[in-house]
């Protein structure tokens, strides 16, 4: 890494990309760099640092909308929302602890580039479900906008959503507009202790299929619960967690409904608001795998397939695992140096398909192994054509999503 360009405006971003396209000089697109350890490493002589492109441009709480320049720290956005009792409903994961970095370091641009989501994705979706509009500079060095600031909008292709999760390989976002939501008045977690993986899947499936409006559901086997317990959470033995958010009377009512629905299996306890929030933050941020030298995978499968997936990989090699999203998200920690990529992807295919991303691994491994789920030929070709239409010279984050 030698040279860093730090544009202060969308026009300067355009100049920088025009130069890069003309000279065929690849750029590594960065906010604070907090996600450089994620995805496939980029080899580029120049970095495009967007951290100077910072600031909330519009926030109208009654309209449930916020708009900010791409380099705005996510922490700044969350603080602004918090002051009006609002939040980003999709609960973006903070990778800091897992990647051995300071927490709270990312920008809104990085959040969109990586399509972040947290435990509440189960009910509220991911960043891609909440983006309303975007201004960006394509790899051609042209400024364009798409979407707007209103929720209902079908005026042209939905490029903001398409660019969410594109890891900066199609365009450099300069301004992002998001839908926000009122923060729940309170919350509680319904904890069932002592279930095995199969029983936990049944309990989570029953809860999600009821009208209790569970906003997050996770199962921690005993060895994972023990790690979180050491971090101060009141857990003992295997813990199946069901999160209830809303007005106090509603939370109590739904807690009672879950108790009636799930009676008979395991011991039930209740975590009140503060303890509940703290526990879910650590479940979301994969705190259980922080500070180790294991290689970490993030696997997305159908919710009922999560337990089966874990059983398959644990039969094949030694690993630790737990699931979030009612079984649909598996966090898997493998003792290196072999990330077991073939076995992981065979297990994904074996349980009906999905997506496995190698989240934490040394850079050489993230270059050698396909970090993202490989695509079938026709889909990979289509993705390459889309890339070529946005960035014909391949100057934006080359190799970030695959070789």
């Amino acid at each position: 890494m030698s040279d860093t360009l730090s544009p202060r405006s969308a026009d300067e971003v355009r100049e920088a990309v025009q130069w890069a396209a003309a000279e065929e000089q690849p750029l590594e697109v960065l906010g604070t760099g907090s996600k450089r350890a994620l995805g496939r490493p980029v080899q580029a002589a120049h970095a495009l640092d967007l951290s100077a492109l910072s600031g909330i441009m519009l926030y109208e709480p009654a309209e449930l909308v916020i708009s900010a320049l791409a380099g705005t720290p996510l922490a700044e956005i969350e603080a602004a929302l918090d002051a009006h009792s609002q939040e980003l409903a999709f609960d973006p994961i903070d990778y800091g602890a897992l990647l051995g970095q300071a927490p709270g370091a990312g920008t809104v641009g990085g959040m969109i580039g990586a399509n972040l989501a947290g435990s509440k994705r189960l009910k509220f979706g991911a960043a891609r479900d909440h983006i309303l509009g975007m201004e960006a500079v394509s790899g051609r060095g042209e400024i364009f906008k798409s979407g707007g600031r209103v929720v209902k909008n079908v005026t042209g292709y939905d490029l903001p959503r398409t660019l969410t999760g594109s890891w900066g390989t199609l365009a450099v976002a300069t301004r992002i507009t998001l839908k926000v939501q009122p923060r729940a008045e309170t919350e509680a977690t319904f904890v069932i202790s002592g279930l095995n993986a199969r029983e936990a899947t049944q309990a989570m499936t029953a809860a999600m299929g009821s009208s209790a409006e569970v906003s997050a559901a996770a199962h921690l086997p005993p060895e994972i619960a023990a790690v979180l317990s050491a971090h101060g959470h009141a857990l003992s033995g295997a813990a199946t967690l069901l999160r209830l958010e809303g007005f106090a009377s509603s939370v109590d009512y739904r807690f009672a409904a879950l108790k009636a629905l799930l009676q008979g299996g395991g011991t039930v306890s209740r975590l009140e608001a503060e303890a509940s929030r703290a526990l879910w933050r650590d479940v979301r941020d994969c705190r259980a795998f922080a500070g180790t030298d294991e290689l970490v995978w993030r696997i997305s499968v159908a919710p009922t397939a999560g337990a089966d997936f874990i059983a398959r990989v644990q039969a094949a090699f030694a690993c630790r695992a737990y699931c979030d999203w009612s079984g649909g998200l598996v966090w898997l920690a493998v003792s290196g140096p072999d990330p077991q990529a073939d076995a992981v992807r065979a297990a994904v295919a074996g349980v009906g398909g999905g997506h496995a991303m190698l989240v934490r691994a040394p850079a050489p491994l993230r270059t050698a192994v396909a970090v993202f789920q490989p695509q079938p030929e026709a889909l990979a070709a289509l993705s390459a054509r889309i890339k070529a239409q946005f960035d014909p010279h391949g100057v934006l984050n080359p190799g970030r999503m695959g070789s």
Partner: protein
Amino acid sequence: MSGIVMPRPDDEVLARRGEIVAALKRLVPGEGVIDAAVEMRAYESDALTAYRQLPLVVVLPETVEQVSAVLRYCHENNVKVVPRGAGTSLSGGALPVGDGVLLSMMKFNQVLDIDPANRAAVVQPGVTNLGITRAVEHLGFYYAPDPSSQIACSIGGNIAENSGGVHCLKYGLTTNNVLGLEMVLVTGEVIRLGGKHLDAEGYDILALMTGSEGLLGVVTEVTVRILQKPETARAALIGFPTSEDGGQCVADIIGAGIIPGGMEMMDELAINAAEDFVNAGYPRDAGALLIVELDGPEAEVDYLLGEIETIALRNKASSLRVSTSEEERNTFWAGRKAAFPAVGRISPDYLCMDGTIPRKALPEVLTRMRALGETHGLRCANVFHAGDGNLHPLILYDANQPGQLEAAEAFGADILKLCVEFDGVLTGEHGVGIEKRDLMPEMFTEDDLKQQQRVKCAFDPKQLLNPGKVFPVLHRCAELGRMHVHKGQLPFPDIPRF
């Protein structure tokens, strides 16, 4: 709109019609190819009935292999293709072209898999929106997006238009409720996107397909999220002296942290037209009427209705009724749901517009709209998805009076420009189609539109799928791909570099 020009049919393709029809009959045997003009009439327009055009030929495939074979043939032989679902588009999205195949997907009408444990259903694209709910309601589930045409419109068409409905503030649009697709590219290649899992493995092409108005591919299978039905739902009917008061009440409800399942507003003209039609008990003297529906656990609904009552009274509500039975709740909605036909009774013809504005702009937009009505000499009734800012002005006119259709269309265009002026958009849920195609430059720069068209080029470089829709100016892909580069110095040398 009557001024909208479609691309000129290609005489060379028209001359090959016999050969094309014969080839398609080989690919889709039996009753799957319709080439007699009298039988093709049923396909000459969609719900934007002012525009009609017979297609070259109609094809109704039954299998993915047939869809693939038809598209491959058309691609290799440079024949245009217009995909069609139930034909309920209000923007002309399924208007045929005279030198192209009309590809109807309505034989794809099967529910393939209901998976309550994963809260998902897999259906074919010709299944109606309501058909999905009908297929899963015995398990206590439903499909959330509910466009008012839900009894007729197909899920494939919902994907093309990213359809909404009255519940989308709380439950999202089509794009938030679709988990996976199988689709056929214009080359005939079949690709699958997503599934019952949540994360996409590459670019979010699922998001791109949703709302792409049939320009990028043909959907052959859809995986949707299904939700457990709320335990209960109740509605409040609140009258206000003015739309300003009603608008402030909406802002205060959201400001109090309440996201209602549905929140609809009607103006005086719409209130009275609806009341004349269905006797829903609407307050005729109100300047604005708000219907607020709360759904969820009973304890929550009861609590929130109390909160909303307090907020409404603080905002000068002139009347307030809360439904006490399912029957009464349905009566409250009956007037709103019948608003379009109700307006149809008080005027020989009407045009339904579909802009979205930031909610706070409503009073000013309504005032400006009244002034525009005076300029154009026409009246306008307003129904408004107050929760999400989607406005449906109904422009009243009489097509038998010379000049009134043109005046209505000019009034409609002015309303949409007004929406854009207030930071809104041209279309919330009806699509651009042909209707708003020529207004796109009101909202987008040339570079904005060119980047959109380049996306099209990645899917359909010959631009054979649904031509003449969405984009006002057609550029050839080769022209769009050209890049003007100027070699030079590193940019902004005055900036500190590290």
